[in-house]
């Protein structure tokens, strides 16, 4: 079964999105820890679309097939390809670190694949995660 969640692109919607995804844990058949990682990935990308993207609507689709969860995030904001975002160097000392850039770094760490395409003025980010 595919589950699609649609929210308005405002930060107050992020909480209910995450709560709803958490309530789907049985359908996704994952551990608490994996759910925590899924929520983190969603939060990072959806918050980015809300805060930086400037679109109106965000759609998140979850599709669990066998041992793989496919996540698709669509937003109608300005074009942004997270696969091209510059890598943070997590080995830098404190004085060289600046706040920012960690979101996409965490997303990459907690997922197995990350792809991007733009179709009809919509950003489509697809991710997979072995569950």
């Amino acid at each position: 079964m595919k589950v699609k969640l649609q929210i308005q692109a405002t930060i107050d919607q992020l909480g209910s999105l995450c709560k709803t995804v958490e309530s789907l844990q049985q359908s996704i058949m994952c551990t608490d820890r994996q759910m925590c990682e899924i929520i983190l990935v969603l939060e990072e990308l959806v918050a980015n679309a809300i805060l930086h993207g400037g679109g109106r609507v965000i759609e998140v689709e979850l599709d669990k097939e066998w041992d793989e969860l496919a996540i698709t995030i669509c937003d109608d904001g300005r074009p942004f390809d997270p696969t091209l975002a510059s890598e943070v160097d997590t080995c830098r000392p404190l004085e060289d670190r600046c706040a920012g850039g960690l979101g996409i770094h965490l997303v990459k760490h907690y997922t197995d694949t990350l792809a991007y395409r733009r179709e009809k003025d919509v950003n489509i980010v697809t991710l997979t995660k072995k569950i």
Partner: protein
Amino acid sequence: MEYTVSQEKNINIVRPIGRLDSTTSPDFEQCLAEYLKSPGRHLLLDFDELDYISSAGLRVVLNAAKVFREVEWKFAACCMQDHVREVFEISGFDSFISIYDTVAGFVDRVDE
């Protein structure tokens, strides 16, 4: 964003409760501002009751760490749940923020 604050010797201990995410972190940053303006004590973030942290929460912690780099007082974190600790490590924060298993661990350290 709920949190509790306590003092032990010359240490301010701040315990955020629940989640440090995009929604709650701006709130928490405001709460913390008081302890960052002109620090007169050490600051320990006790994460015992923190269930979740995202990059928005890391940002607040990083900014706090930067402030304490400039002063004579110490900044540290303690009592992290596994998932929170992992996020710190993936982000490389454990290389410049001391992480203690217990509050006492930090208290002993600053007493030395």
